[in-house]
């Protein structure tokens, strides 16, 4: 037997290194980050599990094409500073992506060890490098290309916009980001809660873009303060990344009762406006005892877990299908369950009932069962007649999704939209139906993930650069 071969085989360790986390009993009472991150020791141990495949499939699973084996091999060598450099070549938001990307459906799902259920924890390693850099306090600013004199306006400072900004500024263009709210970061600051993505991290990443030289103008509503057409007079190109910001409601009786929130309102109040610090912050929040969250995605989990941290005795997820169909990441629904969120599956709210002062008191629901798979491939929920029942609740958070925000499409002649209200844009280039205007992220795809928005941003940046170089639309 070849001794070298034996050694190599024995190196394959199928046990992924667990992420140290706050225990559920403790974390359900605080807003600190749940996952604590790998230590250097664990990171190196985990990195060593990577087989450094000759044809790495993980890379193909990454929407922004990060050189995954390369940055992992830097960790193995203990050369973290080269690792983060490698990572940042393709991803200007590593600390964010390491936390909120659905790696299990992307890079990690392609890992050769995934067949053995021992895929390398790529996301956790990405996060480790980003956090290491922040701890070191030395942020490496890459050299920029010679100034081109071209100006680009970016509408929205979420993941798509920030990616476009990061890419174009390195190519020597002048970049200005316009943000409607008072803090930059888009959904990363108003939507995703502190315990999953600390706001300091988002601030750090946005700061990095600023240090690269991008101008970030907050409190500026494109579509109102200035139209796209006005921007086009001043800028050579405009990128629209305004996200999915119009909450859906269910059109059932009682939805305008006090105590019924859209997830956007509930989370914005808590995150952006720091309602969780009330009354030390001046944004008022209600102290709710029983909270029900309607929906089964990540936003629903975020809302239900926020409710617990705000001191609710009872926090429930109400979802019309079963556990198997939950659109949330497994990690998030597991975290929620561990923390004590109650799951009411196969349940559909049909009516909200209020008290004499217009406050929510009860919700009336129907029981559901699963039928044949529908267009989405998931089994369709069917109402069970006469299965109505009521639950006492003092708050409901409606987390069933968002349409694209109509502010830019409705004020920009020549921008074509789809029936769903999303902008029509070329998948490969992000070009819209209006010359010199590109778009990407949720405004084009409808509500999706942070990394998909970043991938769209990357493609648009490439196309914008090409246009600025050649002048050809």
């Amino acid at each position, binding site marked *: 037997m070849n001794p070298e071969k034996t050694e190599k085989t024995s190196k394959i360790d199928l046990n992924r290194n667990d992420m140290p986390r706050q225990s559920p009993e403790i974390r359900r009472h605080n807003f600190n980050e749940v996952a604590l991150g790998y230590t250097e020791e664990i990171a190196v141990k985990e990195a060593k599990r990577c087989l450094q495949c000759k044809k790495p499939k993980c890379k193909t699973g990454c929407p922004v094409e990060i050189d995954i084996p390369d940055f992992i091999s830097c960790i193995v060598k203990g050369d973290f500073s080269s690792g983060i450099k490698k990572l940042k070549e393709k991803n200007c938001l590593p600390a964010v992506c390491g936390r909120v990307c659905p790696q299990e459906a992307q890079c990690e799902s392609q890992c050769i060890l995934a067949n053995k259920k021992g895929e390398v924890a790529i996301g956790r390693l990405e996060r480790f490098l980003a956090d290491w850099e922040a701890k070191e306090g030395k942020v490496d600013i890459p050299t920029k290309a010679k100034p081109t004199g071209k100006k680009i306006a970016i509408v929205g400072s979420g993941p798509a916009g920030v990616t476009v900004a990061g890419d174009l500024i390195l190519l020597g263009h002048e970049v200005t980001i316009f943000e409607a709210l008072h803090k930059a970061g888009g959904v990363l600051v108003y939507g995703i809660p502190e315990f999953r993505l600390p706001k300091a991290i988002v601030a750090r990443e946005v700061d990095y873009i600023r240090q690269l030289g991008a101008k970030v103008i907050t*409190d*500026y*509503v494109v579509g109102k303060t200035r139209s796209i057409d006005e921007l086009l007079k001043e800028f050579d190109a405009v990128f629209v990344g305004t996200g999915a910001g119009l909450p859906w*409601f269910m*059109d059932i009786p009682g939805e305008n009762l006090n105590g019924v929130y859209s997830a*956007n309102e509930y989370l914005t109040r808590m995150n952006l406006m720091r309602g969780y610090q009330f009354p*030390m912050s001046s944004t008022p929040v209600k102290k709710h005892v029983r909270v029900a969250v309607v929906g089964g995605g990540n936003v629903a989990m975020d809302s239900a877990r926020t409710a617990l941290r705000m001191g609710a005795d009872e926090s429930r997820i109400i979802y019309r299908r079963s556990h198997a169909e939950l659109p949330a990441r497994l990690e998030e629904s597991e975290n929620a369950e561990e923390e004590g969120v109650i799951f009411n599956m196969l349940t559909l709210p049909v009516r909200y009932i209020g008290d004499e002062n217009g406050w929510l008191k009860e919700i009336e629901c129907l029981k559901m069962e699963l039928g044949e798979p529908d267009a989405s491939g998931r089994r369709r929920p069917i109402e069970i007649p006469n299965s109505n029942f009521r639950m006492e609740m003092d708050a409901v958070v409606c987390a069933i999704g968002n349409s694209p*925000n109509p502010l830019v499409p409705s004020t920009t002649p020549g921008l074509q939209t789809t029936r769903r209200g999303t902008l029509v844009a070329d998948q490969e280039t992000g070009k819209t139906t209006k010359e010199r205007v590109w778009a990407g992220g949720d405004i084009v795809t409808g509500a999706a993930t942070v990394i998909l928005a970043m991938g769209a941003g990357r493609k648009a940046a490439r196309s914008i650069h090409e246009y600025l170089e050649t002048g050809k639309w």
Partner: protein
Amino acid sequence: MNKIIERKMIVPNMHLLTLEAPDIASKVKPGQFVIVRANDEGERIPLSVADWDEEKGTVTIIFMEVGASTGALACLAAGDSVATCVGPLGNETEIGNFGTVMCVGGCYGIGSLYPVVKALKKAGNRVIMVFEARSNYLIYWVDKYIKLADKIFNVTRDGSLGLKGHISRLPDIINGLPNPPDRVIVNGCTFLMARTSEMTRDPSIPTVVNLNPIMIDGTGMCGVCRVTINGKMKFACVDGPEFSGHEVDWKEFLSRRKAYLEEEVLFFRRSEPKQAVHKEGKCQA
């Protein structure tokens, strides 16, 4: 950050705030609003724009000091800055030549009607003003309106000026006119807008109200400003803020406006009492 050019108390509890905001000043139209945050810890509150000067690049707001956030604004002075002033938000007032338009204003609405009245006059309307207040000393900007309005009526609770009583005296004013107005526009507190709409329903005079619900972003993202208009859910920030007063579900609107009444009190109780001295509406603590 927007610099404050002027901040003064124009009548008790009512403040005028002029901010440097050239982008907004060059864009704003009658009936629109801005969202303001006094400081970095502040809540985002929507406030109607009462005037602007495109040349100087300034925007003027009239607001009543009622809670924590308006209180913080009232403590600022010329030279200070507000953390946020964003806009112009919402749709502009529909302006046309309607004939005779009656504009009913109370509270901050006396201020926010000013650009509306200017535009109405420019479009060739006859404008009748009705000011409503608890007492005569709470009515302001009369000098500005005298130059614009064709007729001015006053209703005061204590009878110190004009008719004595509530806005429910409005039919007395309308009945005294040779012809009823072709349109009524109301700006002010919820009670004023709801009562006026009630009284113009029967003679069937088109009545426009400018709603002022709780808001966060003002761009349609959060949905907290939802109102029921003719049985349908609308967002006041992007679908409004102006609606037909006859179509608003006022009971629901009022209860949603009052959602955080208790928390407002809680906020004031969070801190140790400070020795505060007020001089001309400016907190000197």
